[in-house]
């Protein structure tokens, strides 16, 4: 078997929802990640959707996705016997990832300073809403709090609606990505110097750069960017820019941007399909030949010239809308891209599942979940030629590796039984 980048690394995974993607990233690069679940049930196993559409702690799709390649033990680290076992594990570990309220591990006697007494070069990675210090360090958080406080949420949605939260717990995702990168950076340093350290990720901070230019616009010009909805900053509906309805769904078009084909290419295509109407005539043709992003910017700069152009522009838009409505979204997407027209399909989950590019690249991973059942999981975020990303094992059942791991720690099997009946494991 080829090597993995982290096959000599052990990670103890105490992460809740905010950091469970971080430990997945490490596990899929080959680390031995031991997920530590509370004996009365890991709350992540309660989060739907569920495989089979029925609540079942062994079938949370969130859990199955985020815990590939990990081993699971159940352990109550708040009980003295549990804490002692955890400390034994720390002695064998390289990285601990946690998402508790800052100070909580300290209160158990398991904070960074205490861990270094057990394992001097340990790396502790903490992923929290606001980081380990500062006036909001003890604020409660969930995904929407990180997104809102970063300034990102202020930018999405229609003016008449509440600001939109981006789908998919993005502040957990960004916090986890930064947590994994920080853990890897700390490992590199440890390999060089033998020194461990504490990595502090704030979800709010992790999200701020996603504001794009809004933060800099304030900093440099004193203007506050607000959500602008489907039209963006452009005051009128433009041809070939925005969301359009195909026969069976939607496409997103951004024609006229640098690097892409021009409107003339678009109209040639429309003509080949017999749907160009009158766009090759008179003032329409003139507009087709001049319309690009630079031309649009000049319209915004010289609004007095806009009214004269609006009639032609909205006619072009209507012809474009009629053209798109004639075809399936996949046809539009693939045909447009072949001609370097900047159009993307608005994918639904079904479209993602059936995407021919992902299919060709064998991206999805069919992972055996026992009894001959395979579950189709998301594939690699990156492909490394010498130390490949890999899913070798499905997500664990609760405490599936108790015996295996506690035996590794030289706990006698009679003691394992005792700890179980005491509710420690």
């Amino acid at each position: 078997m080829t090597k993995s980048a982290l096959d000599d690394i052990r990670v103890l995974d105490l992460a809740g929802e905010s950091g469970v993607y971080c430990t997945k990233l490490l596990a899929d690069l080959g680390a031995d990640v031991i997920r530590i679940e509370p004996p009365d049930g890991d709350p992540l196993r309660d989060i739907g959707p569920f495989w089979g559409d029925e609540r079942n702690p062994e079938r949370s799709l969130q859990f199955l996705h985020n815990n590939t390649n990990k081993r699971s033990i159940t352990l109550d680290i708040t009980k003295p016997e549990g804490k002692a076992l955890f400390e034994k594990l720390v002695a064998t570990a390289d990285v601990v990832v946690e998402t508790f309220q800052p100070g909580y591990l300290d209160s158990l006697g398991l904070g960074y300073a205490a861990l270094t007494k057990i394992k001097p070069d340990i790396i502790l990675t903490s992923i929290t809403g606001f980081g380990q210090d500062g006036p909001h360090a003890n604020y409660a958080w969930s995904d929407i709090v990180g997104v809102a406080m970063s300034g990102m949420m202020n930018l999405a949605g229609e003016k008449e609606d509440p600001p939109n939260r981006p789908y998919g717990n993005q502040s957990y995702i960004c916090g986890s990505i930064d947590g994994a990168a920080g853990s890897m950076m700390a490992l590199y340093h440890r390999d060089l110097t033998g020194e461990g350290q504490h990595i502090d990720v704030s979800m709010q901070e992790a999200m701020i750069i996603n504001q794009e230019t809004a933060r800099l616009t304030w900093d440099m010009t004193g203007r506050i960017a607000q959500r602008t909805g489907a039209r963006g900053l452009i005051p009128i509906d433009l041809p070939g820019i925005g969301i359009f309805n195909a026969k069976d769904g939607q496409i997103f078009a951004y024609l006229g941007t640098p690097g892409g084909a021009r409107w003339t290419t678009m109209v040639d295509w429309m003509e080949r399909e017999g749907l160009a109407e009158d766009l090759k005539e008179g003032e329409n043709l003139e507009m087709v030949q001049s319309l690009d992003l630079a031309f649009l910017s000049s319209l915004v700069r010289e609004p007095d010239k806009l009214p004269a152009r609006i009639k032609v522009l909205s006619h072009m838009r209507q012809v474009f809308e009629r053209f798109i409505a004639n075809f399936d979204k996949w046809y539009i997407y693939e045909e447009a891209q072949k001609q370097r027209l900047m159009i993307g399909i608005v994918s639904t989950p079904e479209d993602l599942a059936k995407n021919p590019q992902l299919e060709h690249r064998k991206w999805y991973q069919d992972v055996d979940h026992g009894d001959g059942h395979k579950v189709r999981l998301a594939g690699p975020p990156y492909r490394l030629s010498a130390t490949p990303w890999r899913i070798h094992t499905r997500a664990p059942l609760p405490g599936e590796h108790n015996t295996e791991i506690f035996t590794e720690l030289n706990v006698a099997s009679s003691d394992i039984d005792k700890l179980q009946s005491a509710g420690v494991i």
Partner: protein
Amino acid sequence: MTKQVLEGIKVADFSWFGAGPICAENLGRYGATVVRVESEAHLDGLRSVAPFAMQPCPACEGKCCKECLNAGRVTKTGYNVSGYFNNYNANKYGVTINLSTEMGKEIARKLIAWCDVFITNQTNRMVDRWAFGFDELKKINPNIIAAYQPMQGFDGPHKDFFGFGAVLNAITGYNHLSGFPNRPPMGIGTNYPDYVINPGHTLIAILAALRHRKKTGEGQCVELAQIESVVSTLGPVVMDYNANGNNQIRKGNRLSYASPHGAFRCADIEWEKQPMDRWVAFGIFNDDQWRALVEAMDSPAWASDAKFATFDARKQNEDDLEANITDWTRDKAPHDAMALLQSKGIPAGVVQNARDVHEDEHIKARDYLEYLDHPETGVMAYDGSPFKMSKTPGKLTTPAPTIGQHNEYVCKDLLNMTDDEIAEALIEQALY
């Protein structure tokens, strides 16, 4: 000063726009020597995108206040005044190499021989044109780590499909899944995957490759197909289709396992003589938090209605629930509402705008933003470290290079070119 983690690691940054440059900037932030390659013949588009630094106003003698910034002053012009570009290119040396000249290609090869890590987010077509494929690079530098960020990967029927972050938002499902169901899938406001998802995943992969190289001496190829990097973060929703046939659609700000969950309107403020709407966001994930919310609201009569007594009941009556809560938030300042809810242990945050983020006491206390003085923009605030390291903190020390700022330094000091060679490269417009 303590030694930085990546001190001694050399990075040749042949990328542009967001996803590549941000990754390379983060390598530089933790100590790597990064050379950013550009060309006036193939300009990074971000150099031409706002916001731009403003002309100093005579009244303030160059030290402008926010008020006068809006008084009709004009922006500076040229390639070096875009905050958008600068923010992703601090801690880098800037060199302009015209890759359509033979001599430019020769200088690029020297840089490839010099570096440990090569990174690009150019399309497969440009990578081929410039002979930057992994096999080509290995001939020049056998142990190189080369990271590529093609939109759809190196191969397959869509390998030459193109776009930028906004198109990727559509293709990967973010647009279909974000926002309110009665609205078209308009997207999430920015070219989102360019800023953390793709540069962050690439950084992880490069660090994995560096670790392997340190152990074995062997380099490798990192291929981050941007579509795959993004969809990998959306695993469960695709699994729900594959396993159950559920084809989910956007549900606004609601969440299946919390209720209420969303943004609630607070008191409007006036900004630039217009009303500006303000919002507080929070979610209630369990009955303890629900009781805390009722208490925070001073136990209004509606809250004891059976309609809201349990999680399932609240889910069923979510429209009414949200309307009732808005009655309570509507006359409050958002920061007051957040502080009150937080004092009861409820996860709550203001929907902050860019100004709020700059003035956020917590962000200030943690020194997240880093202020660097740039010769043409003056002092501007750069995004800070993605993670804080207790022993080896990252730091931005030099602002983004002006175009071609370090041509001589890079050629002479890093690539050991002679003065004559450099002069010839200038005359031949290879350093352009």
